[in-house]
């Protein structure tokens, strides 16, 4: 998907694609509900991480507001359901668009200056948005949050992970494919040019502000859609569900997976979604010796997220995606001799 010009799919890729398609269709029938739950969550996180990757990995800007914009999407969806019931694809689109618009409002002032200011403006936006979610009682129902009815498809309610799978995973696939294709277009190439050398990009006739805004708008749109799916999935939206730590989680995901590769965003989101669950398993075993081991999980998680960010930036800035491609290159080289 990341190769730029492939007239016909090489056999290797075709096989991989066919296998993935089979896995996608077969999964809900083969896999247990427990794993479907995690697959759905991975898909939601993949969308948000891919959005952030467009901004950070491809455009060279950083945001600490990805979680807050997911919150915007989730609240938009919940409110739409209460006041203006739309078919769920339209509602998801609306969730993305509202997040994108708020993103543009936040990005507009800060993107006039150096890229770093966007990160700071998004921190400010996270604080402001969390305040709005908590204190705008009449609309968001304060700390109690909003509850949603399950999404419905021709009157059939979708409330099990196995049913939501058919909404969440295809949406993720479509959005990731769109992101991959974006970088074959003029707009995507412009993002990369800005990342690599913004001054040269401007000389080449790329209006910096417009493209940076576009990139941030896209990232926020992805976050909004992910937040909408999140709302369908958990069916209750509260202000404390989207803390800055979650934004750091997404940042960690794309750094760990690989900045500036589509596969990186996907791998990173899957990996990072599994980390807390792995921790839960490990600490669950530890409770045999340390009775309150489970209580320290959030702290350990914070340390691990931080350590992953620092470690990968220092030692493997291209992320797991680079490790994978290095290994496959080596194995192919060995096979050919």
């Amino acid at each position, binding site marked *: 998907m990341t190769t730029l010009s492939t007239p016909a799919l090489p056999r290797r890729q075709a096989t991989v694609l066919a296998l993935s398609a089979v896995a996608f269709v077969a999964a809900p029938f083969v896999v247990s509900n427990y794993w479907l739950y995690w697959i759905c969550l991975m898909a939601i996180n993949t969308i948000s991480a891919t959005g952030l990757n467009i901004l950070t990995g491809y455009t060279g800007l*950083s945001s600490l507001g990805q979680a807050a914009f997911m919150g915007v999407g989730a609240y938009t969806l919940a409110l739409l359901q209460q006041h203006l019931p739309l078919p769920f694809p339209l509602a998801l689109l609306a969730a993305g668009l509202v997040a994108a618009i708020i993103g543009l409002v936040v990005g507009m002032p800060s993107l006039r200056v150096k890229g770093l200011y966007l990160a700071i403006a998004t921190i400010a936006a996270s604080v*402001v948005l969390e305040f709005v979610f908590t204190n705008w009682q009449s609309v968001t129902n304060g700390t109690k949050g909003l509850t949603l009815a399950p999404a419905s498809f021709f009157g059939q309610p979708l409330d099990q992970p196995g049913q939501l799978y058919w909404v969440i995973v295809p949406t993720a696939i479509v959005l990731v494919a769109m992101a991959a294709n974006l970088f074959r277009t003029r707009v995507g190439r412009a993002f990369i040019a800005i990342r690599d050398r913004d001054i040269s990009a401007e000389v080449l006739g790329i209006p910096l502000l417009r493209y940076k805004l576009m990139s941030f708008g896209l990232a926020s749109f992805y976050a909004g859609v992910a937040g909408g799916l999140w709302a369908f999935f958990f069916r209750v939206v509260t202000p404390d569900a989207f803390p800055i730590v979650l934004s750091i989680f997404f940042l960690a995901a794309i750094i760990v997976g690989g900045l500036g590769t589509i596969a990186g965003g996907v791998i990173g989101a899957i990996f990072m979604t599994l980390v807390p669950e792995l921790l839960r398993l490990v600490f669950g075993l530890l409770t045999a010796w340390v009775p309150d081991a489970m209580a320290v999980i959030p702290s350990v998680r914070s*340390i691990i997220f931080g350590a992953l960010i620092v470690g990968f930036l220092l030692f493997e800035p291209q992320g797991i995606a680079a490790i994978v491609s290095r290994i496959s290159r080596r194995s192919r080289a060995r096979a050919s001799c």
Partner: protein
Amino acid sequence: MIDWLFLAEVTLAGLGTGALLALPGVAFVLIYKATKVVNLAIGETLMLGAYAYFALTSGLGWPLWLAVPLVLAAGGGFGALVERIMIRPMLGSSAISVFMVTIGLGAMIVGAVELAWGLEPHRLVTHTSEAPLFIGEAYVPRKTAAAFGVATLVIVVLLLVLRLWPGSLALRATATDPGAAYSCGVSVPRVYSFSWAIASMIAAGAGILVGAVAGISPGMGVFGLTVLAVVIMGGLDSVLGVLLAALLVGFAESVVVAYLGGEYKLITTFALLLLMLLVRPHGLLGTAEIDRL
């Protein structure tokens, strides 16, 4: 009808907060000027200093005169270590990458503090008397006054040192142009270590003051976000601007808390920040960077 006495008390409280914000703010600017790193972990360094002091005084029962220098030394050592193992290897990477490293560092410190000392807030042992202090007729908590005094003293001394001490020339040279400074014989790596050490020492010391006034908890890092807002508002590379912005934010927060309530504190600061980014993105007194053609 405005209650002038109340307003005076609120203003004094604001001055106190402002001084506490200014101290880590200056540390932030020191790091930014010398190494061009936006250090998001400064709030967490501050928290680490406060907890180290808590461990030494409440945990081990050490006296103030022994605990404070030790915390300052540990803070300095911590800063130098972080610079050496996390920041220097990133030399030459994009500003965003280094920024993200400091985010990761901050997350690690928060987790470590939570693990070591738990989530519940603590109070620091203080040595000020509880007797109220009156300036004119206005009441000021003695702790706030003491913290204000110490913070002001430290900032004044620091500014004098940075201006008069011959070694500070190397710092200013590096801040202006690391390459040129290096070729003139300035040991740029040492300047980097030094600035991180001093700044982290100031932050750790500020942690003791902040903790003494408001208590300590793993959520103290939020104070770091306020400091970040102050620094951006003042101008990343201007000490004077940061001092002004610190007083402004301290005053605004104090007024808002007095008249609207505590939950409006953070939103006021960040609304001010967004406003500042809108009208004057490089801050009150910061240098407007010309990076367009």
